[in-house]
């Protein structure tokens, strides 16, 4: 479950922010998660909630923005959405690296990120918080 490693890295970063900014209480963190990052949203949410328990950011919400994958074909110069696997067993579509136009191998040029986009916080009195 690599989502736990990712959630831990995320929470470390947020706790670092919280420690340096005692007057700001984090209420929400917004992530951008690309289609090619293969991160399972449900698992990431579950891990996030588990990791923040009893930390200064307990109760903060995780908002995930999904970023579409983009592939580039070195053979036919196709650039755009990937081809999806047919006849798969999961409900979520699975992007492939097969070129939708010519069938050769493409490179993923977009949608492989997993990054914090922004943090929403509330100004608080550090003595009360």
């Amino acid at each position: 479950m690599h989502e736990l490693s990712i959630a831990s890295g995320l929470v470390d970063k947020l706790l670092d922010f919280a420690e340096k900014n005692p007057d700001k209480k984090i209420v929400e963190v917004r992530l951008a998660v690309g289609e090619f990052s293969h991160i399972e949203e449900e698992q990431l949410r579950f891990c996030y909630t588990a990791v923040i328990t009893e930390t200064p950011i307990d109760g903060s919400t995780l908002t995930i923005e999904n970023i579409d994958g983009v592939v580039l074909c070195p053979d036919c110069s196709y650039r755009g959405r990937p081809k999806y696997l047919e006849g798969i067993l999961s409900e979520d579509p699975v992007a492939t690296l097969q070129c939708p136009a010519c069938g050769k191998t493409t490179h993923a040029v977009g949608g492989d990120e997993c990054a914090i986009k922004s943090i929403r916080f509330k100004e608080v009195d550090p003595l009360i918080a």
Partner: protein
Amino acid sequence: MITLKAQPDEIYDIELEHSLLEANAKLAKENRALLDKHGTTAIDFMGAIGSGKTTLITKLVEKLKDKLGVAVFNGDATTSNDADAIAKQNVPVVQIATINGCHLDANLVGKGLRQIELEKLKLIFIENIGNLICPAEFPLGSKARVVVVSVTEGPWMVKKHPHMFLGSQIVIINKIDLAAAMEVSVDDLTRDVHALKPDIKVIPTSCKTGAGIDQVAEALLAI
């Protein structure tokens, strides 16, 4: 970073571009630079528990160790069984215990790289944790990634774990001596792999009969 002036209890945003995969990616690049400096190639072997990674690596080490300096890194959550098996080949073996981790990461591999005599090595086999879900997100600094699937895992291994294949250059379909008994078609598995990534090299092998082992060795030396 843009910070707005805030009033108590008002909610504000901070724009923050911070990649959560970057820390590992950076260490992977450092590992790669260290390997390149010594002219050493590392290959990351991924695959499920029981797919035959250890046996396959043992066969490859047997074949290659007299021709060039080889070493093996073994990732294992708790035991040293695999490392012990390969150590019988009298090549340097680094056991990396991840305890609760389900994948090797670049930090652990980097520590291992600093503990062996890289100048004597041409090829390092990195046996990742037996897991087809996690390791794809965690590059280690290897020059190529190999996925090992075996026919005993059934006909759906590729379709069930498509992500693992997208970042790999070689797929080994192992235990083909059992394909008929398992009623699994090696051709179908190959087709599934190529549907995901047409230029991936697929090599059917059997560690029992020795089929395909030479081709894998050749493919690794060509990387």
